[in-house]
């Protein structure tokens, strides 16, 4: 988020108020950039207009990859590279491989999912980005409106935010 962008921030102190305010502001033809909150608010992503995340698809693919990797490694070592008779079992002793294949699935899903999550949200250790209003990690809810992306004038945006129940309207 570059510092040259013009933002108008509406500050709210209740999660239900901010959720309703998004609808009210959008009804006036104002584009809402994003809403910042100290905790997840159900339905807010839909109200703001974000698309449904594709993380579950990524997770499924990582899981599948993990299972394939585990089965490939085990079958390569136990059947092709160095087959050994253990307890009179087949070299291809599928039931015995299920536990490790399962652990591989979980391991790949977890790390793949979290990495995808971090990359898609631009989260990385040492990232110095701060919230537009640092009170949003405490008890305030902030609706951010990008002035440059809106046809509505700044004064009208401020008025709409006030009317929707904002306790403060700031420019950043």
């Amino acid at each position, binding site marked *: 988020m570059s510092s040259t962008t013009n933002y108008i921030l509406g500050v709210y102190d209740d999660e239900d108020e901010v959720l309703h305010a998004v609808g009210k502001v959008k009804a006036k033809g104002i584009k809402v950039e994003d809403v910042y909150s100290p*905790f997840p608010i159900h339905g*807010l992503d839909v109200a703001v207009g974000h698309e449904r995340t594709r993380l579950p698809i990524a997770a499924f693919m990582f899981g599948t990859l993990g299972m394939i990797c585990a089965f490939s490694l085990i079958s390569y070592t136990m059947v092709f590279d160095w087959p050994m008779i253990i307890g009179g079992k087949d070299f291809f002793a599928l039931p015995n491989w299920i536990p490790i294949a399962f652990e591989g699935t979980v391991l790949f899903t977890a790390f793949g999912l979290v990495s995808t999550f971090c990359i898609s949200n631009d989260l990385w250790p040492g990232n*110095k980005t701060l919230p537009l209003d640092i009170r949003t990690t405490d008890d305030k809810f902030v609706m951010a409106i990008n002035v440059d992306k809106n046809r509505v004038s700044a004064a009208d945006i401020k008025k709409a935010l006030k009317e929707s129940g904002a306790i403060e309207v700031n420019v950043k």
Partner: protein
Amino acid sequence: MSHVVSPIREKLVTGGKSYSDVTHDICKQVEGEPTKEWKIAFGISCLVFIYGAYCLFYTWWQGIGVWGLNKTVGWAWDITNFVWWVGIGHAGTLISAVLLLFRQKWRTSINRSAEAMTIFAVLCAASFILAHMGRPWLAHWALPLPNAFGSLWVNFNSPLVWDVFAISTYLSVSLLFWYMGLVPDLATIRDRATTAGRKFWYGFFSLGWTGSSKTWARYEYMSLILAGISTPLVLSVHTIVSMDFATSVIPGWHTTIFPPYFVAGAIFSGFAMVQTLLLITRVVFKLEDYITIEHIEMMNIVITVTGSVVGIAYLTEFFIAWYSGVEYESYAFINRATGPYWWAYWMMMTCNVISPQLFWSKAIRTNLMVSFFLSIVVNVGMWFERFVIIVTSLHRDYLPSSWAMFSPTMYDIGDYIFSFGLFFTLFFLFAKYLPVVNMAEVKSVMKGVSTEFTIKRIKPTKKTEE
């Protein structure tokens, strides 16, 4: 998550807290100077850790001949302690994953410290795995790595190898789950930071978190999926640990009941350990408004349920040993209850089967002192359970001439002390430098569970704070 909750439900956050109060109450501990009590407790745990580290070093240096093992009893305290710690390490992920899937709101105040405890307990368990190998510097031989012996691989048919994968996956996934849960709270501390050091370090680890609605929406999906995969993971870990025993042919070990019985026992002991730590934490850090009697009671109910499952498993084992008609199996069980280790067996029965039944009384399960005492009793009992399973099944084998007893040496005891030192040192560091309650999650369920917000819903008034 702010849907309507029946007003007759007990409140999970008391004292009329606002969101800002939550932030303040939890961050206070992180931001303030360490208290005198913390310094004393941390000092003691460091001393215990140092003594234990000496014993562990000596064990590694000399080899496991310094333990009291003999030809007949080849596994004793090492594996007992390993299974005990791994079992304890089941509660954290269970609380954060299974209770998340079941939408149990009371998990929010306790999941952070329970998960931390899980991670530390699994590390303690790992120390016994390494030690019992005898040559811990060759621990990587348990991994399927290309090697100098003509690429001889590990045996993937062996439960011991499954265990390596299960424990390491469990440790790393739990760590990841815990850390991702911490990120929003680390950002809160970053944004409140008054010193440059705190701003830098909490900022470094909070990954540039802003709490935008898009991030939160994805975050919730991520948590849900992590919970979904962690739930079978938790169950798989102790199932696989139990298979270390169940796939052998030793009477007393070779039973199909082991996986569910071990998993129930693990949840039982894990919840008891969480209970012990929470009862201390809530008093020391003055978190009585967040970790309420309601939480304690819920925990006690889970302890009673899992304790009863464990009790039924003990009786089933005994019945099957008789019903199977296998002479050796029957003897193994009769020897447990009436042989030279009868005291360990009856200790286990009393602590695990009888004591949790006291929680049927509401007066007992809401009494803090009794809950604290019984939570320790449960873990003593669970240690004896593993000791009974391992040592009494081994000490009288098929040949009476090789029958033997096991007695621990100071290094058996010292290595066990090491794990306590490690556990408490890490726990105290966690309690000082990280938020012990998940602030974001507590805030997200406060409408409906806190006294202040319920009053407001019944009688809407204009907010006047600030």
